[in-house]
């Protein structure tokens, strides 16, 4: 027997602290490097109270991404001028000098002609400041991708208006009754999944937390839950309204919370706006004891009316709560059952269970502070909210939680910040009339109204929205209709795959790409979009570079350091170096430094601010972000790896104490009317197509247009991810493709046996999904774990590249089934529809070479 260890973690070498980037979050890691300098093991860092030494399957693959033979090893130049999905780009390696010469020359030309002619797709979530680079490029605000919108067009602004945060999650430390509606939190996806799965498992097994999952497909969470409630896709809002109906009619709500902590008591006039006192414009409430209207902050208020109709100043006014109560008359469990297919008695039972579990009236003491205790919460995410009426839907979900008084409350539904930047910085601010200041813009400042539009995705007309990148599909193929006075001809793609992630007509996307004079891409491996580039610039791998990040943790906080564990394997550079060099060559370096200061929050500690004329590399930025967080030098972070602690309870729980939450979001109406007026004044020709009904201060039960597609499209198609392909998809890594392609839910298009039988489809048959907008082909995977009206398409089936050695190309991308139009876009939030109506037909029985056949269908007409 030899004495040298054979197990990788036991070999001689060193452990280096780092931060995972296999999804967009930031689990803390330890990386083992052998004496010979080979990375041979990545583990979770046990000192982290977030992932506690544990990693998800993707995190366990980090070293294969580093050593991926498919990595881009030097800058590349295209030699084949023809561009298309089937064209070989004819890459030739070039020097960085030559690459920067070309990119600098081409981008300078664009900048000088019209900076709006650049289409950026910059999607590195751990270096969010890079998203702001286009702002340095002549205030370019285009967005050629749907990252952020696909999952959360309606979600992020609503979190911003309700919690002043980017995301939200249930309080896993205290929750006893957890509803997951169209969400993988705690099981398969979303925020810090390795950490969330750990906290969730402990809560379930050790505390007996009950989990109820509502979704069309039996996900991991559905399989682990006490109860899986299948639901017709895109009816989650109606389910939630059914719950609200029961909670309100049976008086199962938190009266004290609604009266003291929300604006549900503010009187609303006939025009939908709050009734304001003439002399000082203050919002008013009704005092039922004194039987009169008073200003919201009148010290003589003895009680607040939640219900009733009152005559005030010559008009009839109702408390906001009464308006919602009136709306709920149309939302009986019976009616909502017809829409959702969830049985009436199930809606009623879940509402009662939820209210009972919420323990309305109870309190808890945490860190010396006594607070309400509401250990029941309604959690949701992309699947539930990703619909045309995204704003209404998100708002409705918040109201389920508000009714039981659990917002930001121990055990309840809590806002999660994207990046606090500084440990002592709070994320809330007071707004008007005692209310919390709404902060819908969590990713970048608001884009001001303009006509002709300045942005190709019409962000000029979404004062509350997240960039609806999918609209590029219609604007760039019909620019006259939208009145553009420029047309883009340049594209910059950085860690993004817009052709893959955007919905809409594929031929139109290809047409748009073909029109580009120049495309530059920055990434680590090529993808469906970057193969259209003229020049490709290789970025460092995570294990070769510096970064400091803290991205949407839930119940933890603190900066996490990434540092090089080995020298660069190839001729790559950090994103910071690449953008600095380009900026310098086109003359915008000083502006770029100013913008980085702003986005990273360096002015909060002025000594950290970047100076004009200097280029700051990845280590410099990481060092400053660490100093901003807790004044610790980068050497401290190199040793510790991170500054992660449990989230400080004063920031986590009820940080808005003393302010009122937006039960009724009048702000939405204000922004609607302001936009209307702007559009009228500027005579915007497409203003009549704007669905003004999407702007509501309270949600209602209207149906999303996806339900009104022609009847021949008799099934719903949904797409989903799981923990192995959470956020970024890593099928190019063999360990991931190994486990994914062995998992039945990723082996084909999921269809219920009844639906399959009705169409003569057997397990393994080749089937086609045809929507009004496109079609895809795949193998049928017959499963009991899906709603009979629904087919489920794993994200793992949607790639079409064939140059990645271990990816199985699918017979088309799910996104081709989706519309990219105004009718199916939330005019309020920019949220796109993520469910398609399809007809499902059998193409043939399973051929011997099934993978090849499916792949051939991608190009077939």
């Amino acid at each position, binding site marked *: 027997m030899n004495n040298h260890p054979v197990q990788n973690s036991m070999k001689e070498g060193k452990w280096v602290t780092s931060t995972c980037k296999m999804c967009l979050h930031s689990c803390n890691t330890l990386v083992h490097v052998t004496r010979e300098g080979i990375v041979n093991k990545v583990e979770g860092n046990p000192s982290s109270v977030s992932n506690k030494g544990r990693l998800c399957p993707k995190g366990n693959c980090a070293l294969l991404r580093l050593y991926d033979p498919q990595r881009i090893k030097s800058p590349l130049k295209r030699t084949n001028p023809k561009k298309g999905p089937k064209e070989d780009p004819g890459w030739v390696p070039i020097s960085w000098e030559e690459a920067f010469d070309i990119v600098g020359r081409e981008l300078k030309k664009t900048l000088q002609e019209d900076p709006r002619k650049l289409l950026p797709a910059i999607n590195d979530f751990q270096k969010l400041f890079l998203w702001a680079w286009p702002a340095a490029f002549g205030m370019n605000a285009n967005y050629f991708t749907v990252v952020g919108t696909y999952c959360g067009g309606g979600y992020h602004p609503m979190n911003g208006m309700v919690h002043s945060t980017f995301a939200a999650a249930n309080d896993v430390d205290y929750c006893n009754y957890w509803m997951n509606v169209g969400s993988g939190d705690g099981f398969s996806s979303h925020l810090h999944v390795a950490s969330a799965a750990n906290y969730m498992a402990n809560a379930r097994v050790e505390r007996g937390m009950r989990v109820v999952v509502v979704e069309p497909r039996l996900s991991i969470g559905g399989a682990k839950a006490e109860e899986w409630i299948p639901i017709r896709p895109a009816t989650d809002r109606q389910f939630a309204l059914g719950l609200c109906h029961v909670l309100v009619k049976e008086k199962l709500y938190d009266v004290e919370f609604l009266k003291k902590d929300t604006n549900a008591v503010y009187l609303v006039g006939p025009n939908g706006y709050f009734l304001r006192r003439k002399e000082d414009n203050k919002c008013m409430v009704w005092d039922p004891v004194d039987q009169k209207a008073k200003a919201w902050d009148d010290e003589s208020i003895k009680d607040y009316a939640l219900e009733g109709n009152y005559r005030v100043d010559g008009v009839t006014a109702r408390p906001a709560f009464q308006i919602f109560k009136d709306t709920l008359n149309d939302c009986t469990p019976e009616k909502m059952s017809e829409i959702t297919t969830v049985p009436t008695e199930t809606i009623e039972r879940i509402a009662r269970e939820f209210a009972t579990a919420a323990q309305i009236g109870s309190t808890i003491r945490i860190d010396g502070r006594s607070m309400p205790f509401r250990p029941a919460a309604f959690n949701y995410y992309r699947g539930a909210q990703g619909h045309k009426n995204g704003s209404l839907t998100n708002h409705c979900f918040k109201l389920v939680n508000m009714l039981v008084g659990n917002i930001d409350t121990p055990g309840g539904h809590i806002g999660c910040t994207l990046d606090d930047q500084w440990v002592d910085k709070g994320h809330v601010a007071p707004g008007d009339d005692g209310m919390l200041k709404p902060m819908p813009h969590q990713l970048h400042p608001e884009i001001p109204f303009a006509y002709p539009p300045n942005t190709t995705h019409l962000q000029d007309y979404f004062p509350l929205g997240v960039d609806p990148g999918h609209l590029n599909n219609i604007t760039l193929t019909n620019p006259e209709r939208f009145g553009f006075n420029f047309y883009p001809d340049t594209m910059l793609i950085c860690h993004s795959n817009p052709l893959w992630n955007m919905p809409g007509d594929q031929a139109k996307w290809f047409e748009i790409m073909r029109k580009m004079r120049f495309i530059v891409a920055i990434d680590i491996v090529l993808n469906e979009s970057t193969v259209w580039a003229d020049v490709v610039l290789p970025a460092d791998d995570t294990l070769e570079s510096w970064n400091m990040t803290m991205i949407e943790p839930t119940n933890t906080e603190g900066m996490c350091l990434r540092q090089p564990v080995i020298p660069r394997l190839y001729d790559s550079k950090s994103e910071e170096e690449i953008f600095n060099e380009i900026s310098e060559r086109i003359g915008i370096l000083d502006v770029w430094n100013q913008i980085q200061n702003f986005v990273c929050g360096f002015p909060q500690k002025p000594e950290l601010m970047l100076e004009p004329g200097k280029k700051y590399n990845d280590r410099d930025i990481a060092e400053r972000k660490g100093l901003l967080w807790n004044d610790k030098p980068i050497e401290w972070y190199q040793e510790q790896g991170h500054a992660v602690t449990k989230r400080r309870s004063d920031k986590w729980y009820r940080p808005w104490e003393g302010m009122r939450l937006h039960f009724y979001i009048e702000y939405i109406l204000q922004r609607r009317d302001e936009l209307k007026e702007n559009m009228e004044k500027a005579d915007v020709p497409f203003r009549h197509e704007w669905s003004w009904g999407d702007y509501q201060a309270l949600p209602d039960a209207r149906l999303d247009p996806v339900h009104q597609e022609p009847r021949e499209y008799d099934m719903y198609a949904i797409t989903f991810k799981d923990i192995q392909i959470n956020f970024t998809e890593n099928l190019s890594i063999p360990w991931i493709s190994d486990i994914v392609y062995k998992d039945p839910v990723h082996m084909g298009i999921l269809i219920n046996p009844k639906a399959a039988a009705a169409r003569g489809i057997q397990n393994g048959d080749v089937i086609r999904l045809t929507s009004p907008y496109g079609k895809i082909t795949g193998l049928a995977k017959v*499963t009991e774990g899906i709603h009979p009206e629904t087919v489920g398409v794993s994200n793992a089936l949607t790639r079409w590249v064939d140059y990645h050695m271990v990816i199985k190309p699918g017979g088309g991308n799910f996104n081709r089934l989706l519309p990219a139009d105004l009718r199916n876009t939330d005019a309020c939030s920019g949220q796109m529809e993520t469910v398609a109506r399809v007809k499902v037909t059998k193409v043939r029985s399973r051929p011997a070479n099934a993978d090849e056949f499916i792949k051939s269908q991608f190009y077939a007409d």
Partner: protein
Amino acid sequence: MPRWGMVFDLKRCIGCNACTIACKQENTTPDRVLWTKTVSEEIGTYPNVTRAYIPLICNHCEDAPCERVCPTKATYTREDGIVMVDENKCIGCGACATACPYKNRYKLHQEQFDRGLYRSGQLTPFEKQGYGRFVAGTTVKCTFCHERVDAGLEPACVITCPTEARIFGDLDNPSSKARRIIQARKGYQPLAQHNTKPKVFYVE
């Protein structure tokens, strides 16, 4: 002397296969060789349906059929109960793989090492540093991460499991977490009818 065993908590397991990949990282097993994995099984009919996630691993049986049938005594049981294969004695006859009721043994083929994980013939530095432990033509299986265990550490699959569904410990120690969970939650062994006395238990 401890007697090492493992408990799988089926209530916790979410079938993510972080364990599968952590094992591959730790042991540099070649393409298609999975010393541990989780599989899933659909149970019931719509809408009364659920899915079970079941981790699988070498059970390190007390009465190991693989050891009994090995003609060269390549398969042996350490004092602490870990069942091992001595690659210098293994002749690759495959008798052990046939005898194992759990099908948890893999025979290595030279082609797996030549093709590499990316199935391209391009071996990564990671593979190059790790494949030296293996001999093509021999049979391999989970070692409970014996070197980690000897160093007082837990197996790689255990430390990475996001839901703590894998509990490793001394089955003879009444206060070990593994033993306590088996007692408290009535742990059972896989395919107990084969009477191989697995040192792996499942709890629900």
